[in-house]
Structures are given as C-alpha cells and as structure tokens.
C-alpha cells in the first residue's frame, strides 16, 4: 500500500537535503499522500490520539523529572514540592497522572475497535501483535510510574506486584530480591523504578514506530473489513484524515482537560497522599482502574502460581487471537452472532473491573470467577467456534459500493467519489 514518492520542489535547500536524505519525500508519501480507505469512522482516530498521549506523557514527564527526587526520604516530599512550589507544578503533575488514565482509555477503545472490525486478521497479525507489545510496555511504565510518588498505595502496589514473581518455581524468591535490590521494596527499588520509568517511554516510541511501519505496509482496515480494491476506495491521508484526527483529538483534549482541571484526583486513590509505611498495609489495596480487570483475574484463582499464570495468559491470549479466530469475515458489521459476543466481552471486562475494585470475598469472588472463566471462554472457545458455525451477512463488493449503499439509504446522491465524500 505504501505510495511511492513523487515529491517535487523548486526550493534549492530542500532539494539539496532531499538528494542526501529523502525525508521530505518520505513524509509526503507516508503522511500526506498515503492512500487511506475513504470510509474510516471516528473509532479510527484513536491511533493518532494515542500518539498524542505518548508525546504529552514524555514531554511533561521530562519536565517533572527536573523537580522530582527518587529517594525514599524525599520522594513523597518532592511530589508535594512540585504541587505547591514549582511554577505550574500542580498542573504538570495532574496532566501526567491523568494522562496515564487517558492513555489507557484511548488504548482500550483502540483495541476493542480492532476486535470489532477484525483488524487483527490476515494480513495485519504482526501489526496487532506489536500493539499487544505496546500495551505490555505501557502497563509496565504505568506501574513503575505509580510507585514514584511513594505514597501508601505506591509502596504496597509495588510490593504486591513484584511479589507476583515469587510465584515462579525454584528461583522465585531470588528473583524478587533481585528486582528489589534488597529484602523488601526500599530505596534501591525506587531508584531502579525511576530509571526504568524514564527508559520505557522511549522503548514505546520505538515499538510505536514499528507499529506504524507495519500499518503502512498493509494499509488500514476499515469498517466494512473489505480490502481496498482500487484507487476509488481510498482518499489521501492529508488533508482528509489529518483533519478528522485533529478534530477528534481536540474533543479528546477537552475530556482530558476536564479531568485535569476539575477532577484531577477522581481517577486516583486518596490513600496515596499518605507517605509509604513499610509496616502498615492499607486496608484495601487496589491498583489504578486500568489494571482492575487483570487484578480481578489474578485474585479469582485461589492459587498463587495459577493466579499469576491466568493474569499473564489474559494478555497473551490476545497475541494468538489472529489464529484463534477462524472466521474470514473481518468486520462485525457482517457477523451478527459475533457482534453480540463482542459486546458480551466488553460487558465482561467492565464487570471484571468492578470485581477488581472490591474485596475478593463472597459474591464478588464468585462473580470474578465467572467473569474470568467467560473471558477465556470467549477467546478460546467462542471465537474459534463462531467462525465455523456463523453465517455472515452478504457483504458489499467493495468499499466504494458500501459507501454508495449507505448514501442511498440516507437519500443522498449516488456519486460518492472522494471529492463528494469529503464535502459532506
């Protein structure tokens, strides 16, 4: 799909650079002329939004690092120093803390969009797997970052999550001591977490680059799931999708700003404003909201090692999803039964989120176990079977045909050529 460069310029300086490093031609072919299906809806804007989130977190994070002190005696105080003394420190810290949540909201929408429209299917398997890698690195980064303010939840979250590795047979205990650099979460742990929290976002940049590269080889999927068949099916990325992405991003920033300026602590835990105390565990340890479904899966299995395995398996199952799905029809639009199971999975994940926020007792434990069982049932049984038993709806012959049909339904004109589409 990658368009070839037909970059031309009369500017001698740009010409001079272009003959030595064809970067302008690359920008034009990949970021401007890039042929993109003409029917992408707003669910496709989250890729751009996620890139924006990563950039915000890196820029604000670098600035915060200028004021933060990674030491057990000073970390908590230095965060308060940022909040009270540093110019605009309160805003920068709230942007960074809220930014993590916004990043995860966007990534979960992006992933569910991929599942709904079958974007992980051939030939985009590797694109999808790179996405799962990005999710894993994001999770690691978020976890490490949450430890840095050195509040009670930071400390105990770190202790519980690092202790997961003690479930590894034989070397588990040594592994945890190695991770901690001591016999408990302490100053060496905080130091290394800070170092890695600074490193991983740049690893993310690298994997995101591979993700976009893979996207530009296969081209975008689209709401019909039908492959691009002719130039008629596409429009150039710029200005059509740069504008659409920018508009969606502006709306996203409004939501982001609402949380930063009006509800900055809504997504956090009050107890993290209490300094870490290694001798007192808070009554109720819960991770940030974006980890709750995975935490629920961990706790639903009353066996240490198996619980840990189930939690990691819940993400690993996404890696093999392209091969679990036996249906050759990509989009849920033409898969009536799959569409229902898709929404059941979404509901299941939300329920697991609530379970993760509550103590693992009585009804919550039972609901968590059912939710966990259903999660794996969806991927390991329902998805493979559906492809075999479901009869898909008739699909349009091309993206252009689908656009024409949709316009007819609205009483619109029949000429859905790119220019008319853009004028709407």
């Amino acid at each position, binding site marked *: 799909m990658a368009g070839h460069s037909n970059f031309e310029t009369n500017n001698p300086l740009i010409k001079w650079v272009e003959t030595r490093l064809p970067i302008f031609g690359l920008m034009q072919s990949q970021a401007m002329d890039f042929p993109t299906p003409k029917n992408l809806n707003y669910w496709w804007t989250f890729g751009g939004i996620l890139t924006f989130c990563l950039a915000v977190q890196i820029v604000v994070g670098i600035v915060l690092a200028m004021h933060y002190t990674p030491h057990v005696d000073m970390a908590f105080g230095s965060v308060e120093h940022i909040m009270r003394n540093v110019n605009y420190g309160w805003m920068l810290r709230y942007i960074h803390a809220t930014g993590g949540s916004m990043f995860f909201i966007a990534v979960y929408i992006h992933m569910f969009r991929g599942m709904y429209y079958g974007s992980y299917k051939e030939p985009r398997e590797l694109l999808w797997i790179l996405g799962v890698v990005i999710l894993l690195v994001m999770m690691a980064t978020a976890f490490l970052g949450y430890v840095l303010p050195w509040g009670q939840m930071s400390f*105990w979250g770190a*202790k*519980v*999550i*690092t*202790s*997961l590795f*003690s479930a590894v047979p034989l070397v588990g205990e040594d592994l945890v*001591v*190695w*991770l*901690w*650099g*001591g*016999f*408990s*979460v*302490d100053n*060496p742990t905080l130091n*290394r977490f800070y170092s890695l929290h600074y490193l991983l976002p740049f690893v993310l940049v690298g994997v995101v680059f591979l993700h976009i590269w893979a996207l530009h080889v296969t081209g975008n999927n689209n709401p019909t799931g039908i492959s691009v068949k002719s130039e008629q099916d596409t429009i150039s990325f710029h200005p059509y999708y740069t504008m659409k992405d920018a508009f969606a991003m502006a709306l996203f920033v409004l939501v982001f700003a609402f949380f930063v300026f009006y509800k900055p602590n809504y997504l956090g835990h009050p107890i993290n404003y209490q300094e870490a105390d*290694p*001798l*007192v*565990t808070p*009554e*109720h*340890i819960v991770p940030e909201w974006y980890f709750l479904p995975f935490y629920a899966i961990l*706790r639903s299995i*009353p*066996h*240490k090692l198996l*619980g840990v395995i189930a939690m990691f398996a819940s993400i690993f199952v996404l890696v093999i999803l392209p091969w679990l799905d036996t249906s050759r029809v990509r989009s849920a639009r033409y898969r009536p039964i799959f569409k229902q199971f898709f929404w059941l999975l979404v509901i299941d994940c939300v329920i697991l989120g609530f379970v993760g926020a509550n*103590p*693992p*007792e009585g009804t919550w434990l039972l609901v968590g176990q059912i939710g966990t069982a259903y999660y794996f049932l969806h991927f390991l049984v329902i998805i493979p079977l559906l492809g075999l038993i479901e009869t898909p709806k008739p699909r349009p012959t091309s993206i252009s045909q689908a656009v024409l049909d949709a316009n007819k339904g609205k009483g619109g004109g029949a000429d859905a050529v790119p220019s008319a589409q853009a004028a709407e």
Partner: protein
Amino acid sequence: MAVSDTAEPTRRDFLFIATGAVGAVGAAAVAWPLVSQMNPDASVRALASIEVDVSALAEGQSITIKWRGNPVFIRYRTAAEIEEARSVSIDDLPDRLARNANVSESADASDINRTATGREEIIVMMGVCTHLGCVPLGEQGEFGGWYCPCHGSHYDTAGRIRKGPAPENLPVPAFEFVGDNIIKIG
C-alpha cells in the same frame, strides 16, 4: 565457492570463528555485572541483624519491629492461643513444614517447631504474607491468629496458613535469645 566442504579451514574461517567466540564470551562477561548490580548491595546486606528487648512484652501483647525493611512480629501468646495452636493436627495444615530457619528444613509445622525453644509462649516471625507480601493484621481472621486484608489469607495462632491463597506458613527468621529478654534476629 563449492569447495568449502573438503578444503582446509581458511584464514577467513578462522577469523569468523575467533571473532564470534570472543564476541559471545565478551557479551556474557559484560552482561553478568549488568545483571548482578541489581542484587542487594553491600550496605543492604550489612543490615543483617538487630537485637530486640522483649522484657516489656506482657501476655497477649505483640510488637512489630522492622528488620531488613520488613516487619517482624513478636507475640507473647496467651495460654488459650498456645492451647489452640497445639490442638491442631499436622494433617489439617495446608503447609506442613515448620518454615523455621532455626530448625531443620524438613521439620513439621507443629507449634513447638514454630516457636522459641524453652520460651514457647513467644513467637517470632516475618510479618509478610507469603502470598503477595502484605502485612497481616494481628488477632484477626477465622483462626484467631493473623489475617491478611489484601487477598484474604487466614493464619492461626502459630502463624500457620489455614485458609486463603497464601501457599506457606509465615516464615520464622533465624533468631536466638542472647539474654533473658533480648532477642537477636538475623
């Protein structure tokens, strides 16, 4: 180029193997310090032992002290608690090993193997849940011992796991009485 099967090793073969070998050994030699630096450093390892005076501890009281970054529970148990811990059959325990650094590794989890020899009313153990490292709460839970609020593990009055996700009894660190009422831990 079709002669390599039978020909003598060439200068090029030698350079290829020699460079590869040096590269592999060199990478391993550099990797080890990079991995090893994350293990506890000398200053952390130096904090190996502490002494605690338990003379002020009365029956039914507990203290929590910090040793190597972790809480250690020291409890002067009541007669009823000792009685209860001793009445439990080893076969009823999820973890039948003593987990006591002061006795043999294969010793069973009887109350006597979990406590200080000659001072069985005193129990000294790590206050770190063997599930995921939270600090259990004392005199709570279904067995009157300790209860971990994080994931619901119940320990009895001898610190043995009885119910919940924790796999092992609370470990007893190496300790000894260095005076009548002075415990040296570590």
